[in-house]
């Protein structure tokens, strides 16, 4: 039983990871939706560039991503300074920064999942909505979005799972401050660096897996209901 009891620091890491994963997932869905939609539907000059940019975090080693985040969003970084001065939003060494790093790292996955769903939407239904008087934004909200739901859900669960495992960019960007930025993967990583830390690392890994599996099961249940609703009509 002892083996299962979490130390206060570990419990804090669990709570923090949950918060980071939840916030980063929820916060990344709207921009991901927007970008997925743009990439799927519009052809514009910067299309390839935007597409490339979205995929960057996948292509670059996480350490590099973290490094770039630090350059941009750190206190001295152009964006970070702006956010701090004008919005009072400080990211460096804060859990918010961890959420940002998570969101950036999972962004390609979320965008791609949503994009696949957007591309599968039958555009004739949107045309039908337009003839019924729905302006583009409402067509999007009342037709496209509901039909994209499976992709949103898949994106959300991918993002959540990725956030639960993300570590390289996070630790490089916001480092590892117990209670503030020490997420589960950071804690696990630290344990793997100590001789004899395997047991602890394994324990926390199992906790992390348990959380993600719960989220996964929930998402599957929702997906099943969605599928039933959207059964080819």
């Amino acid at each position, binding site marked *: 039983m002892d083996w299962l009891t979490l130390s206060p620091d570990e419990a804090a890491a669990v709570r923090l990871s949950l918060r980071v994963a939840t916030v980063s997932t929820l916060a990344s869905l709207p921009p991901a939706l927007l970008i997925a939609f743009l990439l799927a539907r519009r052809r514009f000059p910067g299309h390839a560039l935007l597409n490339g940019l979205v995929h960057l975090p996948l292509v670059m080693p996480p350490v590099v991503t973290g490094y770039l985040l630090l350059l941009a969003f750190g206190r001295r970084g152009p964006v970070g300074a702006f956010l701090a001065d004008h919005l009072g939003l400080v990211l460096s060494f804060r859990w918010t920064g961890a959420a940002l790093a998570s969101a950036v790292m999972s962004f390609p996955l979320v965008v791609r999942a949503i994009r696949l769903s957007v591309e599968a939407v039958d555009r004739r239904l949107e*045309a*039908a909505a*337009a*003839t*019924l008087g*729905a302006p583009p934004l*409402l067509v999007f909200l*009342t037709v496209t979005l509901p039909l994209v739901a499976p992709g949103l859900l898949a994106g959300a669960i991918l993002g959540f799972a990725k956030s639960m495992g993300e570590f390289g960019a996070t630790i490089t960007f916001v480092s590892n401050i117990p209670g503030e930025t020490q997420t589960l993967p950071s804690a696990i990583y630290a344990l793997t660096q100590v001789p004899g830390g395997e047991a602890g690392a394994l324990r926390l890994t199992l906790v992390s897996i348990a959380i993600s599996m719960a989220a996964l099961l929930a998402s599957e249940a929702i997906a099943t209901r969605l599928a039933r609703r959207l*059964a080819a009509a």
Partner: protein
Amino acid sequence: MSLQIDIRQRLGAFRLEARFETSARLTALFGRSGSGKTSLVNLLAGLARPDEGRIAMGDAVFVDTSTRRFLPAHRRRVGYVFQDARLFPHLSVRHNLLYGRWFARRRDMAARAGQDEFDRIVELLGIAPLLARRPAGLSGGERQRVAIGRALLSHPRLLLMDEPLAALDEARKAEILPYLERLRDEAAIPILYVSHSVTEVLRLAADMVVLEAGRVVAQGPPAEIMRRLDLLPSAYESESGRDLVVTVEGEEPRYGLTVLALGEARLFVPRLAAAPGASLRLRVRARDVMLALEAPTGISALNVLPATVVGFSPDGASGMELRLDCAGQELLSRITLKSFEALELRVGSPVHAVLKAVSFDRRYGGDLSTEASGEA
């Protein structure tokens, strides 16, 4: 309100080049499969842009490439019943029906008629038991009915219907057609109606536009257009008969009849919009031609044509088809074997061909051959 269309559009190898104007309450769009009907309707709805041209309804210019105007679909207020139903799979039937109405109600007061109208249309279409369901399990006809309801409830100022009744049984059609007639007559919503059904077109439409390979090849009152058979693929003729070429002689306004001349004989048909002297083709169906040895008197049939039997051949178990010469033109008559023997007909027998004038009345058009069927 008048609808003016003059557009050109390329779709792959297909070219649509349609130009017509109509102010009929219900205009039928007719033409063979692939002639461009749906493409044209899509342009009207704003779902496609013409390469070039202009579409206007009354004062509202829907699209005009010369001024680069393009009114987007959602601001055209057209109700479109698609050839494929296109129901929203994520919404219940009820919410599919209410979808367009919601926008309509935000727009104008008239649309606030409300529950009554909803109930009436649901009742008319027989879809009340489906309201709570999703489109997924609906039958083909159920789907089409919901699509009609959805378009009607969106309070359009122009209704586009692309073969709306194709998947429906006769009984259901017979329920919906009178409603469309009321809509046409009372609500004054112009309707563009695509259909392959001669019956529907004749019954509903005041004007008819015939497309062929993307071009308008005929336009006018349906009964008349249907009669100009040369415009239509000959295969429309599914029953034996012959065309008579006749000349318009005049009118008998008192009886609502037009008088036609065929050689010496005179034929009476319900009034046609044709000037005296014009030449017309009339289709006379073999089954509508009765034969008499003597010119009958005291009968209701107005048209009696002297003729000569020039040939005959058995037709089925109990029938005989005779070829007649009638003022130099050929006519067919189908009678029973029993009559054939009783009248002792031979090649060369002089006979009288008897035809009723009413079988030509537009209201009773069955299919094309019935409609354009024999006169005199």
